[in-house]
């Protein structure tokens, strides 16, 4: 999976998102989810899923719990009879929860197998201006630096007695001023220097960027993209036939 071209990975993930949007029935979405799980296993991206485990479970649970209250149905759930919750609503909730999981884990798969530069290169090859890709990769790189600086800022202010965990909502919000200002000030103080650094190394917005990394599509890329195209075609046809979709009336 890691050997695939960046374009293949981006298009495959977009295909996965498309598959998830084709269906709303949890049975069909479970099939798509299985495919994503397979991809994650083959890519050995399990560690990243484990890091996000709690968040994804929370989001899944949230979707499952909320949708039944907004979807109409005919078969009431006996235990929740008074709340207007129906089995059809629960099914929709499960489907939407699975759709959310597929999308999130698909995104994690892409980020686990692709470097920021690969993403920038692939996006340029797919027609997105290179400057946008460059800004994205630059910002991604600076996030790490700012997070490091942020730790320093928090420690410096805590050492001076700042405690953001106490007080009411407004007090707490106000207490963030000494944390946010040094971080922004530290970054903006460097803006002119960063612009000078970039131009000193030959960057200019009007200059054309040529990527030197070999970015040729190989047989495995065509195979993966073909499989995804077929799956999407079949899924769209199924949806056209009304298969795998639930009646979602609010």
């Amino acid at each position, binding site marked *: 999976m890691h050997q695939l071209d960046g374009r293949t990975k981006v298009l495959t993930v977009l295909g996965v998102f498309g598959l998830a949007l084709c269906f709303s029935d949890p049975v069909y979405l479970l099939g798509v989810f299985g495919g994503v799980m397979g991809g994650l296993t083959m890519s050995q991206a399990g560690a990243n899923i484990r890091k996000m485990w709690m968040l994804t479970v929370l989001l899944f649970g949230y979707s499952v719990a909320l949708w039944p209250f907004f979807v109409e149905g005919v078969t009431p759930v006996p235990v929740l009879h008074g709340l207007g919750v129906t089995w059809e609503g629960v099914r929709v909730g499960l489907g939407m929860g699975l759709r959310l999981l597929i999308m999130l884990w698909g995104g994690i798969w892409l980020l686990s197998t692709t470097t920021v530069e690969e993403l920038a290169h692939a996006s340029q090859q797919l027609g997105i201006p290179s400057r946008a890709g460059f800004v994205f990769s630059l910002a991604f790189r600076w996030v790490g630096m700012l997070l490091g600086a942020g730790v320093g800022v928090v*420690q410096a202010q805590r050492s001076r007695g700042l405690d953001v965990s106490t007080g009411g909502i407004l007090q*707490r919000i106000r207490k963030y001023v000494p944390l946010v200002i*040094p971080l922004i000030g530290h970054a903006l103080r460097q803006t002119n220097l960063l612009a000078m650094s970039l131009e000193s190394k030959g960057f200019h917005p009007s200059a*054309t960027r040529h990527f030197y990394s070999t970015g040729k599509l190989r047989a495995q890329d065509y195979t993966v993209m073909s499989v995804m195209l077929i799956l999407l075609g079949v899924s769209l046809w199924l949806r056209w036939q009304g298969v795998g979709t639930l009646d979602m009336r609010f």
Partner: protein
Amino acid sequence: MSLPQDARDSRRWWADLIAAWRDTRQIVLTAQIAAIYAAILIPFKAGIPIVPGFVELRPANAIPIVASLLFGPAAAWGAGIGNVIGDCFGTLGPASFFGFLGNFIFGYLPYVLWGHLGWFSSGQPPLGKSWRQMMEYGVVCVIASAACAGIIAWGVEWLGLLPFVILAPAIFFNNVVMGLFLGPPLLSFLYPRVQQWRLRYEDIRESGAFHIHSSQTLRSHDSMGSEGTNDHFRDAIVECRGLSFQYASGSAPALRNVSFSLVSGELVVLLGRSGSGKSTICYACNGLIPHMIPGTLSGTMRVKGRDTVDDPVWKQAGRVGLVFQDFDTQLVATTVERELLHPLEYRDPRLSVDEVRLRVVHALNQIGLGDCAHRDPMTMSGGQRQRLVMASVLVQEPALLVLDEPGSDLDPAGRSQLRDVLQDLQQDGITVLMTEHNEDYLAQADRVLVLDQEHIVWEGKPETLLRQPQLMRDCGLRPFVLTECFEEWGLEHVPVSVEEAWTRAEELNLRLAPPVEVLDDSLRLGKLPERESTMALPLIQVDHVSFQYEEQTVLADVSFTIQPGDFLALLGQNGSGKSTLARLLNGLLMPTTGTIVVDGMNTRSTSMNELAQRVGLVFQNPDHQIFADTVWEEVAFSAKNMRCSKDEIADRVKESLAAVGLPFEGSRDLDPFSLRKGERQRIAVASVLATRPAVLIVDEPTTGLDPHETDRMMAMIRRLNQEGHTIVMITHSMGLVAAYARRCLFMHSGRIIADGTPREVFADPGLIQSASLEIPVIARFSQRWGQTLLTVEEVKASWRQGFP
């Protein structure tokens, strides 16, 4: 915003958005806003989930609106991209597209709306100074928040992920609360600074004009016995003739009629105190002055025969490679190899893939990073990162390499590596111009230019300069310590190396026989204060402390005590555990095993606030803590956090400012951001002193300071120690330890490998070398006579003539 009416009228919102991608500073701002947004989004949570997992009250939500009112279109793109980056940390999916769109609008509407709200418009800049400004801000905030919430919630419902009625109010509430309560103080602080840095959208849009006066004829510069001749202009790679420059923001010239040249393969060091114009010359070498730094320029700077004014900066990258003092700002990629590929990707005409591969391999080998091609630069040491930046400019095969104060942020190991690299570059015939404010790299140099008061005052061979300690002092430089030791002997040639000093001593029939006041440290440190009892309880007791971070052992079984009134130096390479130990001492971190007792209190069971009143920690970078509009407010911050009364706060501010030598009068109007780094460092110390701590920990207090500022800083720290504060100083400077510390702890790989007085520790050169540190020059010199002396004064007091 205070745009002129005609500019407002001609403002085309779409053109503005496109134009943001045509200017490097706007591109940088876009990336910075995205990074700031994501960096604040990820860790800073107010702990109040509105829709758990989806929407949580976060300070980051004030960023798009604040940035929009300052930076216009760059804020829109930055907010959108920043939200996607935030999603990349776990929630990337199709909903990210709507997140991008919603935040893009949230970051653009305020800029579009401000000043265009009819009756609601204040006609003033976006600051909360009047009720009309506040009202306009409130309306803008509500509209932008609603638009953002509507777009995201609609998109998320369309994807079938969450109902609109749940998400939209939650996002709206989050944006409005943060925008209304956090936005105004942020704007009030940032607006004047951003204006001062000329970063507001209208400033950037209107910038670019610079003035070039007609070139003046070359005049010989003022001389203080210089050795230089104009012969250098023949076959010169660099020709600087009569260069003068005044920054647009400056009230006086930064350079006056500077002339010099460099021939191929030369390594020239430009010496001078802070503010003498060294960096200005660096920036003129590749056209940053005047293309990106506005001001008034006269004279010429030619590199390889081409005037640097004639081409834009980016087109000169193939001729001049510039490595900035803050080299981290030049790193843009996630691997070493990609870092080197990046500049070549913008090269025109394009190179062949084989040529690129050859260049990358050659540049990495040239700089000694041949085996690091796939490493993440952020996992490398400071010295390695700096060499990586050098490789990333050398890969373009420039005629000239310019290094701006390359040694200032490096530890001893990094400085030693830099010396090796300079030697290799010389052997490869690379022309190098580097600036410094001390004599560390003179041994490698072919020539030295001394810059003082905006012009070159001396030029010649390094050895000749080193033999003139008084000249060096006059120019704000620190003389080589051994020349000072021999100054009183009236030598024609004072020694410029340890070996030469030994020879001179032999010639003069001199030996070192230190008297009692040297050996008991009273000459070096003054009379030590009497302690109440030699059995006094330690102020800090560290008992078998270990600390682990992410399964990595940072500290292992560390034990020591600190007595009241100590001046302790913590020494060791980067990563040896010094900073972690400092953070354990003031309770910012808790030991994994073992205990730390401060003034009788276990750090595990004592609140941060209580510990802060006993152990104050001054961080290396003062900009990580300064946030207030005035010096007074900044210093008062910690006292306010301790809920002191108004009178008590005023007393503490006055006392703390006096302790660091800053005036109390005027502190209520003085902007800390407008001060030099040394003064900002003093404010940081004062703000910690306001807690009246018994122990003051200072982390690298002299990094980036020139000799004069270093002396001032160290004199202040010594005074605080003499007044009763216990000092713990983290430093890489062996010279400072030798001059000021009473005791030092040597750390290596998370363990203490030596604990004793500087004289005891420096008496063991093998120990120092095992920790990859350097023994002070005077200690090495004096060990010839079986003594370990630490300062020039001690050597002078110990000279004896004749044999014993």
